[in-house]
């Protein structure tokens, strides 16, 4: 009998309008993606709806991960996606663009 985890994964980001031209890139990242921080995320794309969940220890309740740390992970994921899509898209391009709008890539 399957045992449900004590702690389900935590939904951290949804995109209801995932662009079809990015789908192959997302699938190439796999269903589980690990950020440079070591935290892992489940990527679940159904149609044009993407769900990103933070994987947590499933047998013990721990203090929440800080939102800013998750934000940094998600930014790395966004960069990884634009890099793997390639062509005119790139992680470097996203970093430059986001910095222009005030995103701190070194924080």
């Amino acid at each position: 009998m399957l045992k449900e985890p004590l702690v389900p994964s935590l939904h951290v980001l949804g995109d209801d309008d995932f662009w079809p031209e990015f789908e192959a890139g997302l699938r190439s990242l796999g269903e589980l993606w690990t950020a440079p921080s070591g935290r892992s995320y489940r990527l679940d794309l159904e149609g044009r709806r993407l769900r990103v969940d933070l994987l947590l220890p499933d047998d013990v309740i721990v203090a929440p991960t800080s939102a800013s740390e998750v934000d940094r992970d998600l930014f790395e994921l966004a960069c990884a996606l634009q890099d793997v899509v390639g062509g005119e898209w790139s992680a470097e391009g996203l970093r430059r663009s986001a910095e222009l709008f005030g995103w701190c890539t070194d924080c």
Partner: protein
Amino acid sequence: MIPELPGEIRELYPFAPHWTRVGGYTLHYVDEGPQSPRVVVLLHGNPTWSFLYRKIIPPIAAAGFRVVAPDYLGCGRSDHGRHEAEYAIAHHISRTMAILDAAGVEQAVFFCQDWGGPIGLGIALARPSLLGGLVLANTFWGEASKFHRQIIPWRAIHAPIAGPLLFARTRTFLNALRLSGPPDIHSGAAWRAYNLPYEVHGGAGSTLAWPRAISLGPGHPTQPLADAIWAAMPSMRVPVRLVWGAADVVFAPGEEEARFRERLPRGKEHPTQIIEGARHFIQEYAPDQCSDACVAVAREAFKC
């Protein structure tokens, strides 16, 4: 909805709220000046709300015109939607028409900046009798500008995952106001006023849906609307003036501005008033010039 505003914002934006129910949502609009059939409607864009018009509303009302300034769904004091699909431009047009119907507006001069262009022109497309005149400012009709087509810095930030992160989970995109607005809105009460709808509701409201609604060409969901507006413009035989910020990187002078003047039958009756140093949120740089243009067009439209 946001029923009450903090005192520091009320000081800058002292207008009584007006509310109407549209499609299950409560939408807000400003309604100032005499209750007259001579109406000026002020249409905002992203990521602003009718607060953008706080310095423009009083002089138009003082000139004897009724002024209506709506907040779209997902903006300002209005409700936020439950699904991204509710923010399709055609739905914004429909809801704004419903606000005008609720307010009893039968004809108006439309001031259109940013997404106010597609919305105002879309209203004119849907109900030509509503259009009495146009003032166009740093706006378009729904098709991407040169800036919009660039991956860096525009498309990259609202691409998958990046978009929900930078627009919804964080409010990074609101820094567009700092990039394209004057220093006095970069901090203080004005800055907090622009952030307020997203702090109260959490999330992005409609801010992410807007850039994704810009049509990049055939096959894009907004392209049919943009095409219909473009086709209808030669029939919009109403007084027109253009006021344009020279330093706008989104809609630089000579691009959409020039095409509007060519396309609208009365677009060349007056030269475009170019405001040197003004960036995209021209209402913040040159409110007097914006209100003067509205009054000039309204006097012509309503023959008064």
